[in-house]
Every structure is written in structure tokens, then in C-alpha cells.
């Protein structure tokens, strides 16, 4: 008992040597993950092609579906859990997500702002004409 460790390697389903986790339950976890991922992928393709939905909301819907599918992959394939043996992995992941969000959202915001403040060529021409 003294040599049991509290931490779990990322991707490992269970670090507990005394808990027999049968292959069948592992198989079930992966299969559930696959089914959910297939459903979400099919939904993404349907949302992108249907004309039933409001066009403005489609990109947002696709983003939500992608986030959901990322969660499915993390939980069912990479076995990220909220358990105490997984804290280190989750903290590293959270930091990664923070940096990714900063890079993507920050770049998009700055570039959109630059585009807004850039004077269109035609307007620039008119200004020069006025002088």
C-alpha cells in the first residue's frame, strides 16, 4: 500500500493497481466516446449544410459542437477526469487552453480593430481630393 502513488499519468485510465479495471469496461468507454464523437461530427456537417437554421448562428453552433467534441475526446479517449489524481494534468490543460484562447481571440480582436481603423482606399482618395 505504501508504494501506491496518488498521481496518474495523462491518458491512463486508472493508476490504481488494486482496482481491476477489466478490458470490457475500457472498451465500453472508448466505444461510448466513438459514438458520441460520430454523432457530434454528423451534427456539425448537418448544421453547416442545412438551410433550416438562421445563418448568423451557424458559426456559433459549429464552435459549440467543436468544443463539445473536444470535451468528448478529452474525457473518453484521454481519460481526463476531475479526480484528485488528475489535478496536475487538468491544471496544465487549463493553462494551455488559457494561452490558446489568448492567442486566438487576441489576434482576431486586434486584426479586426486594425481593419476597422484602416481608412478604405476610396475614402482616402476623396480626402486627398478635398484639399
Amino acid at each position: 500500500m505504501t508504494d501506491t502513488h496518488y498521481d496518474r499519468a495523462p491518458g491512463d485510465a486508472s493508476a490504481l493497481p488494486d482496482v481491476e479495471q477489466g478490458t470490457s469496461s475500457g472498451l465500453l468507454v472508448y466505444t461510448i466516446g466513438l459514438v458520441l464523437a460520430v454523432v457530434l461530427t454528423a451534427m456539425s456537417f448537418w448544421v453547416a449544410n442545412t438551410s433550416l437554421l438562421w445563418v448568423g448562428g451557424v458559426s456559433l453552433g459549429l464552435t459549440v459542437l467543436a468544443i463539445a467534441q473536444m470535451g468528448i475526446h478529452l474525457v473518453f479517449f484521454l481519460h481526463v477526469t476531475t479526480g484528485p489524481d488528475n489535478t496536475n494534468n487538468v491544471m496544465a490543460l487549463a493553462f494551455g487552453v488559457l494561452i490558446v484562447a489568448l492567442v486566438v481571440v487576441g489576434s482576431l480582436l486586434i486584426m479586426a480593430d486594425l481593419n476597422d481603423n484602416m481608412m478604405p482606399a476610396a475614402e482616402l482618395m476623396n480626402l486627398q481630393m478635398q484639399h
Partner: protein
Amino acid sequence: MNIAVAVDDEIRHGARPSASEAGPATKRVVVGYGFWVFLLSDIIMFAALFAAYAVLAHATAGGPSGMQLFSQRSVAIETGCLLASSYTCGLMSLAIGSRRYAVTYFTGLITFVLGACFLALEVREFADMIAIGAGPQRSAFLSAFFTLVGCHGLHVTAGLVWLAVMMAQVAIKGLSETVERRLLCFSLFWHALDIVWVWLFTVVYLMGVLS
């Protein structure tokens, strides 16, 4: 019976030492965690490429746009290949855990074949695009597209080489602790590539066809 199991469970959890009392982590945990951090840094690199693509997506310079170039059918097949290979990679991890060599080789082979199918489809797509003059030098949009999707393709290629090497190691060295750790890292890498692909087909292919 149930109460006995519950009590037994409680004792087992209560007796487990906390992280600081348990002493240094096993090598498997340390290696896995290190590779996890590498993967996160790799994903941050992908985030930069995604940001560049999103900024340049409409900068077509009069050239073809995503709507004219992308074929949803081939993207759907590519997605299916990668998702299925992620699943068989998971089955391979299970087979390694229960030391079944034949199943390990078989699932490894299927993972490799599905990954190779994905790559073949992607290379064909690139070749078709370059053939009609929509190469990376055509517009900023296409430069960003080829960089982002090509970078993912390179990762898949590296993963295939890695998988082949690992299968050879399983054959020669058997499932030693070292080989098992390397296979753990490989499966992490393969699943992470699938997550990157989820964002790729959403942002590049599906959203590209919208506008």
C-alpha cells in the same frame, strides 16, 4: 455484501497516502506528464496557425475561395478515418494493458492503415488544388490554409512513422516498461492530433463553406 464492499472501498481510499507523502511519482507518471506538457505547447503552436488562418481567411486576392475549393465529401471521409483510427488506437492501449500481443499488432495495423488513408486523401486534395493553380503562392488565404492543414498532415506523418517504429520495438523488445511508456506517449499524441483535426474541419472546411 454491498456494505462490505463500500467499507472496503472506504478503507482503501482512506489508506492511500497523499501526493506529497507518497514520495516521487513513478517514471510512467513523470514521462506521461512531460509529454502532456509538450502536447499542450504543440497545440499552442497550432493556435497561432489557426489565428493566422482566421485573420487571412478572406484575403483571397481575387483567387479561388474556400467555397469553390473544398469538397465536403472528402473532408467527411478524412474525418471518419481519423476518428476511427483514434478509436483503434484506444483499443491498442487496452490490448497493451492486458498484454495481448496479437491484438496489439492488429489494432496497431488498423490505426496505421486508417492514418495512411487520411494522409493519402489529404495529399490528393492538395495535389488537385495545386493542379488548378490554387497553390500556396496564389493568395494569403491559400498560404495560411496550406501551412495550417499541412502542419497537421506533417504531424500525422510523424505519428505514422512513430507507430511503425513502436510496432517494431514491440516485436523486438516485447512490452517492456520502456516500450509501454513510449506507447502511452504515442496514444496521447494520436488522440491530440484528432482534437486538432476537430477544430480544423470545423474552422477551415465547414465555416469556410458557409460564407
